[in-house]
C-alpha cells in the first residue's frame, strides 16, 4: 500500500513529462525535460531494487544525455515547426495500434513482483544469488554477473562505447566546420561569475575522488566502472563548462584521451588474453590467482572494471569535447 501511493505519484510525473516532451516545441525545454524524465525513472528503479541501474541512469541519463542534447541543439536550430496533420495522424494511429498490441501481450506476463514468476524460478537465479559468494566472493551480485558471469557481454558493450566515441570523433572531431554558430556575445562563464569559479574549483577534486570511490567500491555497493567513468567525466565536463574548453583540453589533451579509450578496451581484452595464456578460457579470472580461484576472481574483476572505467571516462569526455568544440565555435577566438 505504502509503495503503491509512491508508485502512482512517480508514474503520474513520468507520464506528464512524457506527454510534455511530445507536445512542447521548444527543443531546449524538451532536452531539460528529458533529463527530468531520466531522474524520475531512476527513482522508480530505486524503488524496484535496481540500485546499480538507478546509479547509471542518474549519471548517464540525467547528466550526459542531457548535456549532449543541449550540445547538439547549440549547433542546430532550437525550435521546430509544427507537425503537419498528415504526419501526426498516421503516427498516432500506429502508436495506438502498437500500444494496444503490447498491452494485449502483457496480459500473459506474470504479475508484477510475483514470487513464482519464471524469472525467479529459473535455476540461473539460484546460481547467481546463492553460489556467487563461494564462486566470486563479492557481495554485489550485479557486479559479479556484470564482470564475471557475463564478462563477454560486457566486453562487447565496452567495445561499442569505444566505437561510438571514435565515430563521433570522426564525424565532429576535426575538419573545418562551416561556421554555424553565432559568435559568443558575452564573456565566458568563468570570467563573469566568480562564485561559480570558486565553488567549482572546490568541488571538482571531491567529484573526482567520489568517482574513484564509486569505481573501487563497486564490489560492495552500487557502483562500478560504468558509473565511475561517467562521474569522472562529469567532473571534467564541469571544469570545461566553468573554465572554458581550452583549459579543459589542456588538462586532457585529445591524444591522451584517445590513448586512454584504447587502453581501457585493451586492459579488458588483455585480462582475457592473460587467462588464455594461463591455460584457462577467455576471461576465466580464476586462473589469475595462482591456486586461489577467489583471489583470481577479485583481481580479474578489479582489472576489468578499471578497464571499463577508463574507457567510459575517455569516451564520454571525447563525446563532450567533440560537441562543445564545434559548439563554442573555435573557443580560442571567441573567448577573447
Amino acid at each position, binding site marked *: 500500500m505504502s509503495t503503491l501511493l509512491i508508485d502512482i505519484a512517480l508514474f503520474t510525473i513520468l507520464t506528464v513529462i512524457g506527454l510534455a516532451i511530445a507536445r512542447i516545441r521548444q527543443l531546449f525545454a524538451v532536452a531539460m525535460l528529458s533529463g527530468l524524465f531520466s531522474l524520475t525513472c531512476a527513482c522508480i528503479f530505486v524503488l524496484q531494487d535496481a540500485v546499480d541501474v538507478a546509479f547509471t541512469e542518474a549519471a548517464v541519463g540525467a547528466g550526459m544525455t542531457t548535456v549532449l542534447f543541449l550540445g547538439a541543439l547549440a549547433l542546430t536550430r532550437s525550435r521546430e515547426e509544427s507537425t503537419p496533420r498528415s504526419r501526426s495522424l498516421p503516427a498516432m494511429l500506429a502508436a495506438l495500434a502498437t500500444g494496444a498490441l503490447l498491452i494485449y501481450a502483457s496480459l500473459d506476463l506474470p504479475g508484477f513482483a510475483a514470487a513464482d514468476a519464471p524469472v525467479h524460478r529459473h535455476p540461473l537465479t539460484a546460481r547467481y544469488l546463492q553460489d556467487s559468494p563461494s564462486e566470486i566472493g563479492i557481495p554485489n551480485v550485479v557486479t559479479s554477473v556484470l564482470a564475471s558471469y557475463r564478462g563477454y557481454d560486457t566486453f562487447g558493450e565496452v567495445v561499442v562505447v569505444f566505437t561510438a566515441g571514435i565515430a563521433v570523433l570522426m564525424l565532429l572531431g576535426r575538419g573545418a566546420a562551416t561556421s554555424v554558430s553565432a559568435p559568443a556575445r558575452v564573456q565566458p*562563464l568563468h570570467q*563573469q*561569475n566568480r*562564485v561559480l569559479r570558486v*565553488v567549482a574549483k*572546490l*568541488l571538482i577534486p571531491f567529484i573526482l575522488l567520489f568517482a574513484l570511490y564509486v569505481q573501487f567500491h563497486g564490489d560492495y555497493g552500487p557502483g562500478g566502472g560504468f558509473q565511475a567513468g561517467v562521474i569522472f567525466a562529469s567532473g571534467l565536463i564541469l571544469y570545461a563548462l566553468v573554465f572554458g574548453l581550452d583549459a579543459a583540453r589542456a588538462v586532457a589533451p585529445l591524444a591522451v584521451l584517445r590513448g586512454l579509450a584504447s587502453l581501457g578496451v585493451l586492459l579488458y581484452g588483455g585480462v582475457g588474453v592473460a587467462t588464455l595464456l594461463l591455460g584457462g578460457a577467455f576471461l576465466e579470472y580464476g586462473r589469475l590467482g595462482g591456486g586461489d580461484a577467489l583471489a583470481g576472481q577479485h583481481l580479474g574483476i578489479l582489472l576489468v572494471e578499471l578497464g571499463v572505467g577508463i574507457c567510459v571516462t575517455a569516451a564520454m569526455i571525447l563525446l563532450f569535447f567533440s560537441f562543445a568544440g564545434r559548439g563554442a565555435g573555435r573557443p580560442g577566438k571567441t573567448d577573447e
Partner: protein
Amino acid sequence: MTLLHLASDLLLGAGVLLVLTGAVGLHRLPEFFTRTHAASITDSAGAGLMLAGMLLRVEDGGTAVRLLLILLFLLFTSPTASHALAQAALQDGMTPLSGARERAR
C-alpha cells in the same frame, strides 16, 4: 530512543513543510526573481532539516557520513546555481519586480 525518534519526526515534518512551502511559492509567486527565493527555501532549509531528521535515525557511521556529505554538497551547489542563474537572468535583461516598479505602474 523514542525521544530521538520524535525529534527526527519533528525535523522531517518541518522539512517537508518547508519543501512544500517552497514548491507552492515556486508555483504561485509572480516572476522569476521572487520564485528564486521560494526555490532556495527548498534547497537550504527544507533539505537541511530533512537530512538532519534522517541523520537522527541512522545507526552506523558510514550512512551518517553520506548524509552529511549530501547536505554539504547541497549547501554548496544550490546557492551557487541560484546565484549564477539570477545573474544570467539579470544580464539577459530581466528586471526584478521591485516596490519601485510596482509604484510606477
